[in-house]
Protein backbone atom coordinates (compact mmCIF):
# COMPACT_ATOMS: atom_id res chain seq x y z
CA UNK A 1 0.00 0.00 0.00
CA UNK A 2 1.26 3.47 -0.89
CA UNK A 3 -0.23 6.11 1.36
CA UNK A 4 -0.19 9.86 1.01
CA UNK A 5 -1.08 11.68 4.21
CA UNK A 6 -2.09 15.30 3.78
CA UNK A 7 0.69 15.87 1.32
CA UNK A 8 1.37 19.40 0.20
CA UNK A 9 3.92 19.94 -2.50
CA UNK A 10 5.26 23.02 -4.26
CA UNK A 11 8.25 23.34 -6.58
CA UNK A 12 10.94 25.55 -5.03
CA UNK A 13 10.62 28.08 -7.84
CA UNK A 14 6.90 28.53 -7.11
CA UNK A 15 6.71 27.99 -3.42
CA UNK A 16 3.59 30.20 -3.12
CA UNK A 17 1.59 28.05 -5.52
CA UNK A 18 1.51 24.43 -4.41
CA UNK A 19 0.83 21.85 -7.10
CA UNK A 20 -0.80 19.55 -4.54
CA UNK A 21 -2.50 20.71 -1.35
CA UNK A 22 -3.22 18.46 1.62
CA UNK A 23 -3.77 15.45 -0.57
CA UNK A 24 -4.55 12.12 1.06
CA UNK A 25 -4.71 8.88 -0.86
CA UNK A 26 -4.41 5.14 -0.29
CA UNK A 27 -3.12 3.25 -3.28
CA UNK A 28 -3.40 -0.53 -3.37
CA UNK A 29 -0.36 -2.26 -4.73
CA UNK A 30 -2.16 -5.39 -5.93
CA UNK A 31 -4.46 -3.84 -8.48
CA UNK A 32 -4.15 -1.68 -11.53
CA UNK A 33 -5.10 1.93 -10.92
CA UNK A 34 -5.41 4.61 -13.55
CA UNK A 35 -4.61 8.26 -12.91
CA UNK A 36 -5.97 10.91 -15.23
CA UNK A 37 -6.36 14.67 -15.16
CA UNK A 38 -5.70 17.68 -17.31
CA UNK A 39 -2.23 18.85 -18.38
CA UNK A 40 -0.40 20.43 -15.48
CA UNK A 41 -2.79 18.94 -12.90
CA UNK A 42 0.20 17.40 -11.10
CA UNK A 43 0.08 13.75 -12.14
CA UNK A 44 3.79 13.47 -12.86
CA UNK A 45 4.53 15.35 -9.66
CA UNK A 46 2.39 12.88 -7.73
CA UNK A 47 4.23 9.96 -9.29
CA UNK A 48 7.62 11.43 -8.39
CA UNK A 49 6.43 12.00 -4.81
CA UNK A 50 5.37 8.35 -4.52
CA UNK A 51 8.83 7.31 -5.68
CA UNK A 52 10.58 9.58 -3.21
CA UNK A 53 12.18 11.58 -5.99
CA UNK A 54 10.48 14.69 -4.65
CA UNK A 55 9.93 15.50 -0.98
CA UNK A 56 6.63 16.91 0.21
CA UNK A 57 6.68 20.35 1.78
CA UNK A 58 4.20 19.05 4.34
CA UNK A 59 2.63 15.69 5.17
CA UNK A 60 4.20 12.34 4.38
CA UNK A 61 4.33 9.44 1.97
CA UNK A 62 4.37 5.87 3.30
CA UNK A 63 5.19 2.64 1.52
CA UNK A 64 3.79 -0.36 3.39
CA UNK A 65 3.60 1.75 6.51
CA UNK A 66 7.17 2.97 6.35
CA UNK A 67 7.97 6.62 5.72
CA UNK A 68 9.51 6.97 2.29
CA UNK A 69 12.17 9.37 3.54
CA UNK A 70 13.63 6.50 5.59
CA UNK A 71 13.97 4.16 2.61
CA UNK A 72 17.02 4.57 0.39
CA UNK A 73 16.23 5.13 -3.26
CA UNK A 74 17.85 1.92 -4.50
CA UNK A 75 15.57 -0.09 -2.21
CA UNK A 76 12.51 1.69 -3.53
CA UNK A 77 13.87 1.04 -7.01
CA UNK A 78 14.02 -2.69 -6.39
CA UNK A 79 10.41 -2.72 -5.23
CA UNK A 80 8.82 -0.20 -7.58
CA UNK A 81 9.59 0.28 -11.24
CA UNK A 82 9.20 3.82 -12.50
CA UNK A 83 8.74 4.84 -16.12
CA UNK A 84 9.46 8.52 -16.71
CA UNK A 85 7.20 10.52 -18.96
CA UNK A 86 10.35 11.21 -20.99
CA UNK A 87 12.23 7.89 -21.21
CA UNK A 88 15.51 9.65 -22.09
CA UNK A 89 15.74 10.58 -18.44
CA UNK A 90 16.38 6.99 -17.46
CA UNK A 91 18.56 5.64 -20.25
CA UNK A 92 22.28 5.72 -19.61
CA UNK A 93 24.05 2.80 -21.25
CA UNK A 94 25.92 2.65 -24.54
CA UNK A 95 23.94 -0.24 -25.98
CA UNK A 96 20.41 -1.54 -25.71
CA UNK A 97 21.57 -4.80 -24.14
CA UNK A 98 23.81 -3.03 -21.61
CA UNK A 99 20.87 -0.86 -20.62
CA UNK A 100 19.31 -4.02 -19.21
CA UNK A 101 22.44 -5.64 -17.83
CA UNK A 102 24.60 -2.82 -16.53
CA UNK A 103 23.20 -2.53 -12.97
CA UNK A 104 23.66 -6.27 -12.57
CA UNK A 105 27.20 -6.17 -13.94
CA UNK A 106 28.10 -3.39 -11.51
CA UNK A 107 26.61 -5.35 -8.63
CA UNK A 108 28.32 -8.47 -9.89
CA UNK A 109 25.00 -10.30 -9.83
CA UNK A 110 25.14 -10.83 -13.56
CA UNK A 111 24.40 -14.47 -14.37
CA UNK A 112 23.21 -16.75 -17.12
CA UNK A 113 19.71 -16.44 -15.72
CA UNK A 114 19.87 -12.63 -15.84
CA UNK A 115 21.07 -12.73 -19.43
CA UNK A 116 18.24 -15.05 -20.36
CA UNK A 117 15.77 -12.69 -18.74
CA UNK A 118 17.25 -9.78 -20.71
CA UNK A 119 16.97 -11.68 -23.99
CA UNK A 120 13.38 -12.60 -23.25
CA UNK A 121 12.43 -9.01 -22.47
CA UNK A 122 14.18 -7.67 -25.56
CA UNK A 123 12.27 -10.15 -27.69
CA UNK A 124 8.99 -9.32 -25.94
CA UNK A 125 9.46 -5.61 -26.57
CA UNK A 126 10.67 -6.18 -30.15
CA UNK A 127 14.13 -4.81 -29.53
CA UNK A 128 16.17 -7.96 -30.07
CA UNK A 129 17.35 -6.82 -33.50
CA UNK A 130 18.63 -3.54 -32.07
CA UNK A 131 20.58 -5.09 -29.21
CA UNK A 132 23.85 -3.33 -30.02
CA UNK A 133 22.38 0.04 -30.94
CA UNK A 134 22.95 3.13 -28.82
CA UNK A 135 19.71 3.76 -26.86
CA UNK A 136 19.75 7.47 -27.65
CA UNK A 137 19.60 6.64 -31.34
CA UNK A 138 16.30 4.73 -30.97
CA UNK A 139 12.99 6.33 -31.85
CA UNK A 140 10.86 7.74 -29.03
CA UNK A 141 8.55 4.74 -29.01
CA UNK A 142 11.50 2.34 -29.01
CA UNK A 143 13.09 4.27 -26.17
CA UNK A 144 9.89 3.89 -24.20
CA UNK A 145 9.86 0.15 -24.84
CA UNK A 146 13.49 -0.10 -23.84
CA UNK A 147 12.89 1.81 -20.60
CA UNK A 148 9.97 -0.52 -19.85
CA UNK A 149 12.07 -3.61 -20.56
CA UNK A 150 14.85 -2.25 -18.36
CA UNK A 151 12.63 -1.72 -15.36
CA UNK A 152 11.06 -5.15 -15.76
CA UNK A 153 14.54 -6.65 -15.23
CA UNK A 154 14.14 -6.23 -11.47
CA UNK A 155 10.75 -7.98 -11.51
CA UNK A 156 9.30 -5.17 -9.38
CA UNK A 157 6.25 -5.66 -7.16
CA UNK A 158 4.68 -2.44 -8.35
CA UNK A 159 4.98 -0.19 -11.36
CA UNK A 160 4.38 3.52 -11.82
CA UNK A 161 4.10 4.26 -15.52
CA UNK A 162 3.91 7.89 -16.63
CA UNK A 163 2.18 8.04 -20.01
CA UNK A 164 3.39 4.62 -21.16
CA UNK A 165 1.20 4.45 -24.25
CA UNK A 166 2.31 7.80 -25.66
CA UNK A 167 4.08 7.24 -28.98
CA UNK A 168 3.52 3.48 -28.84
CA UNK A 169 2.13 1.82 -31.94
CA UNK A 170 -0.79 -0.62 -31.80
CA UNK A 171 1.36 -3.73 -31.52
CA UNK A 172 3.39 -2.29 -28.65
CA UNK A 173 0.23 -1.15 -26.90
CA UNK A 174 -0.99 -4.71 -27.06
CA UNK A 175 2.30 -6.00 -25.63
CA UNK A 176 1.97 -3.55 -22.75
CA UNK A 177 -1.68 -4.46 -22.25
CA UNK A 178 -0.86 -8.18 -22.13
CA UNK A 179 1.91 -7.50 -19.66
CA UNK A 180 -0.53 -5.64 -17.44
CA UNK A 181 -3.14 -8.37 -17.62
CA UNK A 182 -0.49 -10.89 -16.67
CA UNK A 183 0.60 -8.76 -13.71
CA UNK A 184 -2.97 -8.30 -12.51
CA UNK A 185 -3.34 -12.06 -12.58
CA UNK A 186 -0.27 -12.33 -10.34
CA UNK A 187 -1.66 -9.57 -8.11
CA UNK A 188 1.21 -7.27 -8.89
CA UNK A 189 -0.38 -3.90 -9.44
CA UNK A 190 0.53 -0.68 -11.09
CA UNK A 191 -0.31 2.98 -11.34
CA UNK A 192 -1.02 4.05 -14.88
CA UNK A 193 -0.73 7.79 -15.43
CA UNK A 194 -2.38 8.42 -18.76
CA UNK A 195 -4.61 10.54 -20.96
CA UNK A 196 -5.35 7.44 -22.99
CA UNK A 197 -9.00 6.90 -21.94
CA UNK A 198 -9.65 3.71 -23.94
CA UNK A 199 -6.49 2.08 -22.64
CA UNK A 200 -7.19 3.10 -19.02
CA UNK A 201 -10.77 1.88 -19.07
CA UNK A 202 -9.77 -1.37 -20.73
CA UNK A 203 -7.07 -2.38 -18.25
CA UNK A 204 -7.57 -0.52 -14.96
CA UNK A 205 -9.70 -1.76 -12.09
CA UNK A 206 -9.94 1.66 -10.56
CA UNK A 207 -9.51 5.17 -11.95
CA UNK A 208 -8.46 8.29 -10.10
CA UNK A 209 -9.06 11.76 -11.41
CA UNK A 210 -6.74 14.53 -10.29
CA UNK A 211 -7.93 18.08 -10.65
CA UNK A 212 -7.76 21.37 -8.85
CA UNK A 213 -5.29 19.91 -6.32
CA UNK A 214 -7.88 17.32 -5.26
CA UNK A 215 -8.31 13.69 -6.13
CA UNK A 216 -11.51 11.83 -6.94
CA UNK A 217 -12.18 8.21 -7.58
CA UNK A 218 -14.33 8.20 -10.70
CA UNK A 219 -14.82 4.68 -11.81
CA UNK A 220 -14.54 1.17 -10.54
CA UNK A 221 -14.75 -1.48 -13.22
CA UNK A 222 -13.74 -5.08 -12.94
Amino acid sequence: MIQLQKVTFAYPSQIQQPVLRRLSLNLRMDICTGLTGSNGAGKTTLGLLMMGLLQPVDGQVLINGKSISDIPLHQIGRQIGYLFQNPRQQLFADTVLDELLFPFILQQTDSAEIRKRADKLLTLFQLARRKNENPLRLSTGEQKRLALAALMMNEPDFLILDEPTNSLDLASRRVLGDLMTERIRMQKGLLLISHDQPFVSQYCQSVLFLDDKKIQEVACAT
Partner: protein
Amino acid sequence: MQLDPRAKMLPVCLLTSLAIIRNSTLQLLILLILALLLSMLVSADLSKVFSKLRIVLSTFLGIFIIQLLFNRSGEALLTAGNRVIVTETGLETGLGFILRMLIILLCGAALATSNSQASIQSLIQLKLPYTLAFMVITAISFIPMLAREVNHTLIALQLRKKKKKKIPVRQKVKTFTYLFFPVIMQTLDKAQALSIALDLRGFRSGFMKTSRMKLKLRYTDWLVIIASSLIFLMVLLIV
Protein backbone atom coordinates in the same frame (compact mmCIF):
# COMPACT_ATOMS: atom_id res chain seq x y z
CA MET B 1 44.67 -4.25 -28.45
CA GLN B 2 42.09 -4.36 -25.69
CA LEU B 3 43.45 -2.26 -22.83
CA ASP B 4 41.89 -1.80 -19.44
CA PRO B 5 40.43 1.72 -19.10
CA ARG B 6 42.65 2.24 -16.07
CA ALA B 7 45.73 1.55 -18.14
CA LYS B 8 44.62 4.16 -20.67
CA MET B 9 43.83 6.89 -18.22
CA LEU B 10 47.35 7.39 -16.91
CA PRO B 11 49.08 8.01 -20.26
CA VAL B 12 46.14 10.14 -21.35
CA CYS B 13 46.37 12.31 -18.24
CA LEU B 14 50.13 12.65 -18.63
CA LEU B 15 50.01 13.46 -22.33
CA THR B 16 47.24 16.02 -22.07
CA SER B 17 48.70 17.84 -19.10
CA LEU B 18 52.16 17.91 -20.69
CA ALA B 19 50.60 19.21 -23.88
CA ILE B 20 49.14 22.11 -21.97
CA ILE B 21 52.28 22.90 -19.98
CA ARG B 22 54.93 22.51 -22.68
CA ASN B 23 55.48 25.22 -25.26
CA SER B 24 58.26 24.15 -27.58
CA THR B 25 57.21 22.85 -30.97
CA LEU B 26 59.65 19.98 -30.80
CA GLN B 27 58.34 18.74 -27.46
CA LEU B 28 54.77 19.02 -28.66
CA LEU B 29 55.69 17.07 -31.75
CA ILE B 30 57.12 14.28 -29.62
CA LEU B 31 53.97 14.28 -27.49
CA LEU B 32 51.88 14.08 -30.64
CA ILE B 33 53.81 11.04 -31.81
CA LEU B 34 53.33 9.41 -28.42
CA ALA B 35 49.59 10.16 -28.52
CA LEU B 36 49.43 8.69 -32.00
CA LEU B 37 51.19 5.57 -30.79
CA LEU B 38 48.82 5.27 -27.86
CA SER B 39 45.72 5.56 -30.03
CA MET B 40 47.15 3.00 -32.44
CA LEU B 41 48.00 0.70 -29.57
CA VAL B 42 44.37 0.63 -28.42
CA SER B 43 43.29 0.47 -32.07
CA ALA B 44 41.17 3.60 -31.99
CA ASP B 45 39.21 4.16 -35.18
CA LEU B 46 41.01 7.36 -36.18
CA SER B 47 39.50 7.78 -39.61
CA LYS B 48 36.04 7.68 -38.07
CA VAL B 49 36.97 10.16 -35.34
CA PHE B 50 38.50 12.59 -37.81
CA SER B 51 35.69 12.38 -40.30
CA LYS B 52 33.22 13.04 -37.50
CA LEU B 53 35.21 16.06 -36.38
CA ARG B 54 35.75 17.56 -39.80
CA ILE B 55 34.21 20.89 -38.86
CA VAL B 56 36.24 21.10 -35.68
CA LEU B 57 39.39 20.34 -37.61
CA SER B 58 38.72 23.01 -40.18
CA THR B 59 38.13 25.47 -37.34
CA PHE B 60 41.54 24.50 -35.99
CA LEU B 61 43.06 25.12 -39.37
CA GLY B 62 41.34 28.50 -39.58
CA ILE B 63 42.69 29.46 -36.17
CA PHE B 64 46.14 28.30 -37.23
CA ILE B 65 46.03 30.55 -40.29
CA ILE B 66 44.80 33.50 -38.24
CA GLN B 67 47.66 32.99 -35.82
CA LEU B 68 50.06 32.73 -38.68
CA LEU B 69 48.95 35.89 -40.45
CA PHE B 70 48.08 38.18 -37.60
CA ASN B 71 50.82 37.54 -35.11
CA ARG B 72 53.29 40.36 -35.66
CA SER B 73 55.92 39.68 -33.04
CA GLY B 74 59.21 37.89 -33.53
CA GLU B 75 61.46 37.78 -36.58
CA ALA B 76 60.07 37.78 -40.08
CA LEU B 77 60.09 34.45 -41.83
CA LEU B 78 58.24 35.26 -44.98
CA THR B 79 58.08 38.71 -46.57
CA ALA B 80 56.57 40.15 -49.70
CA GLY B 81 58.46 43.31 -50.58
CA ASN B 82 58.42 45.38 -47.41
CA ARG B 83 55.52 43.61 -45.78
CA VAL B 84 56.01 40.85 -43.26
CA ILE B 85 53.62 37.98 -43.89
CA VAL B 86 54.67 35.28 -41.45
CA THR B 87 56.70 35.75 -38.29
CA GLU B 88 58.55 33.24 -36.21
CA THR B 89 56.28 33.63 -33.18
CA GLY B 90 53.22 33.43 -35.39
CA LEU B 91 54.32 30.13 -36.82
CA GLU B 92 55.28 28.86 -33.39
CA THR B 93 51.99 29.73 -31.66
CA GLY B 94 50.00 28.48 -34.63
CA LEU B 95 51.81 25.17 -34.70
CA GLY B 96 51.64 24.90 -30.92
CA PHE B 97 47.89 25.33 -31.03
CA ILE B 98 47.32 22.76 -33.72
CA LEU B 99 49.64 20.21 -32.12
CA ARG B 100 47.95 20.59 -28.74
CA MET B 101 44.53 20.12 -30.20
CA LEU B 102 45.62 17.04 -32.11
CA ILE B 103 47.14 15.52 -28.98
CA ILE B 104 43.93 16.09 -27.03
CA LEU B 105 41.84 14.68 -29.87
CA LEU B 106 43.98 11.56 -30.14
CA CYS B 107 43.83 11.02 -26.38
CA GLY B 108 40.07 11.42 -26.52
CA ALA B 109 39.91 8.85 -29.30
CA ALA B 110 42.05 6.45 -27.25
CA LEU B 111 39.76 6.82 -24.24
CA ALA B 112 36.65 6.43 -26.37
CA THR B 113 37.65 2.88 -27.25
CA SER B 114 36.26 1.71 -23.92
CA ASN B 115 32.65 2.65 -23.25
CA SER B 116 31.59 4.67 -20.26
CA GLN B 117 30.29 1.64 -18.37
CA ALA B 118 33.62 -0.13 -18.65
CA SER B 119 35.30 3.02 -17.39
CA ILE B 120 32.93 3.38 -14.46
CA GLN B 121 33.38 -0.23 -13.58
CA SER B 122 37.14 0.00 -13.73
CA LEU B 123 37.20 3.05 -11.47
CA ILE B 124 34.95 1.26 -9.01
CA GLN B 125 37.31 -1.68 -9.02
CA LEU B 126 40.04 0.81 -8.12
CA LYS B 127 37.97 1.28 -4.94
CA LEU B 128 36.90 4.76 -5.94
CA PRO B 129 33.52 5.66 -4.43
CA TYR B 130 30.69 5.45 -6.97
CA THR B 131 29.93 9.12 -6.65
CA LEU B 132 33.45 10.04 -7.66
CA ALA B 133 33.56 7.47 -10.44
CA PHE B 134 30.42 8.92 -12.04
CA MET B 135 31.89 12.39 -11.80
CA VAL B 136 35.23 11.44 -13.29
CA ILE B 137 33.58 9.74 -16.23
CA THR B 138 31.13 12.51 -16.96
CA ALA B 139 33.90 15.07 -16.55
CA ILE B 140 36.13 13.22 -18.99
CA SER B 141 33.43 13.37 -21.61
CA PHE B 142 33.54 17.15 -21.27
CA ILE B 143 37.30 17.54 -21.69
CA PRO B 144 37.43 17.91 -25.48
CA MET B 145 34.64 20.46 -25.44
CA LEU B 146 36.25 22.39 -22.63
CA ALA B 147 39.68 22.42 -24.27
CA ARG B 148 38.16 23.82 -27.42
CA GLU B 149 36.29 26.59 -25.68
CA VAL B 150 39.21 27.65 -23.54
CA ASN B 151 41.43 27.89 -26.57
CA HIS B 152 38.99 29.89 -28.64
CA THR B 153 38.53 32.41 -25.90
CA LEU B 154 42.24 32.72 -25.21
CA ILE B 155 42.99 33.25 -28.87
CA ALA B 156 40.25 35.82 -29.18
CA LEU B 157 41.81 37.62 -26.22
CA GLN B 158 45.27 37.33 -27.69
CA LEU B 159 44.23 38.75 -31.02
CA ARG B 160 42.64 41.74 -29.38
CA LYS B 161 45.75 42.68 -27.43
CA LYS B 162 48.06 44.20 -29.99
CA LYS B 163 50.96 45.51 -27.99
CA LYS B 164 51.54 43.20 -25.12
CA LYS B 165 52.14 39.63 -26.09
CA LYS B 166 51.09 38.13 -22.79
CA ILE B 167 47.65 38.23 -21.28
CA PRO B 168 47.68 39.12 -17.59
CA VAL B 169 47.18 36.08 -15.38
CA ARG B 170 44.16 37.66 -13.71
CA GLN B 171 42.39 37.91 -17.03
CA LYS B 172 43.24 34.32 -17.89
CA VAL B 173 41.93 32.98 -14.59
CA LYS B 174 38.77 35.01 -15.04
CA THR B 175 38.23 33.52 -18.48
CA PHE B 176 38.76 30.04 -17.15
CA THR B 177 36.29 30.44 -14.32
CA TYR B 178 33.66 31.75 -16.73
CA LEU B 179 34.06 28.64 -18.78
CA PHE B 180 34.49 26.19 -15.97
CA PHE B 181 31.43 26.84 -13.88
CA PRO B 182 28.83 25.88 -16.46
CA VAL B 183 30.87 22.79 -17.25
CA ILE B 184 31.14 21.79 -13.60
CA MET B 185 27.42 22.29 -13.11
CA GLN B 186 26.68 20.19 -16.17
CA THR B 187 29.03 17.47 -15.01
CA LEU B 188 27.40 17.35 -11.60
CA ASP B 189 23.93 17.31 -13.11
CA LYS B 190 24.83 14.50 -15.46
CA ALA B 191 26.57 12.48 -12.79
CA GLN B 192 23.58 12.90 -10.50
CA ALA B 193 21.08 11.96 -13.20
CA LEU B 194 23.12 8.86 -13.98
CA SER B 195 23.26 7.79 -10.37
CA ILE B 196 19.53 8.38 -9.84
CA ALA B 197 18.76 6.32 -12.94
CA LEU B 198 20.92 3.53 -11.56
CA ASP B 199 19.39 3.76 -8.08
CA LEU B 200 15.93 3.56 -9.59
CA ARG B 201 17.01 0.27 -11.11
CA GLY B 202 17.99 -1.09 -7.74
CA PHE B 203 21.69 -0.27 -7.80
CA ARG B 204 23.09 1.50 -4.79
CA SER B 205 25.13 4.29 -6.31
CA GLY B 206 26.00 5.98 -3.04
CA PHE B 207 25.22 9.41 -4.36
CA MET B 208 22.61 9.91 -1.66
CA LYS B 209 23.70 7.50 0.96
CA THR B 210 22.05 8.81 4.09
CA SER B 211 19.12 10.86 3.03
CA ARG B 212 18.05 12.56 -0.11
CA MET B 213 17.29 15.63 1.97
CA LYS B 214 20.99 16.19 2.49
CA LEU B 215 21.70 16.22 -1.21
CA LYS B 216 22.01 19.99 -1.40
CA LEU B 217 24.87 20.13 1.04
CA ARG B 218 26.81 17.30 -0.57
CA TYR B 219 26.27 18.90 -3.94
CA THR B 220 27.82 22.22 -2.98
CA ASP B 221 30.56 20.42 -1.10
CA TRP B 222 31.59 18.68 -4.26
CA LEU B 223 31.27 21.85 -6.23
CA VAL B 224 33.69 23.67 -3.98
CA ILE B 225 36.16 20.81 -3.95
CA ILE B 226 36.20 20.38 -7.69
CA ALA B 227 36.12 24.05 -8.58
CA SER B 228 38.92 24.97 -6.22
CA SER B 229 41.17 22.18 -7.40
CA LEU B 230 40.50 23.04 -11.03
CA ILE B 231 41.22 26.70 -10.49
CA PHE B 232 44.32 25.82 -8.52
CA LEU B 233 45.47 23.60 -11.35
CA MET B 234 44.82 26.27 -13.93
CA VAL B 235 46.69 28.96 -12.05
CA LEU B 236 49.55 26.53 -11.70
CA LEU B 237 49.61 25.88 -15.42
CA ILE B 238 49.29 29.48 -16.55
CA VAL B 239 51.88 31.14 -14.33
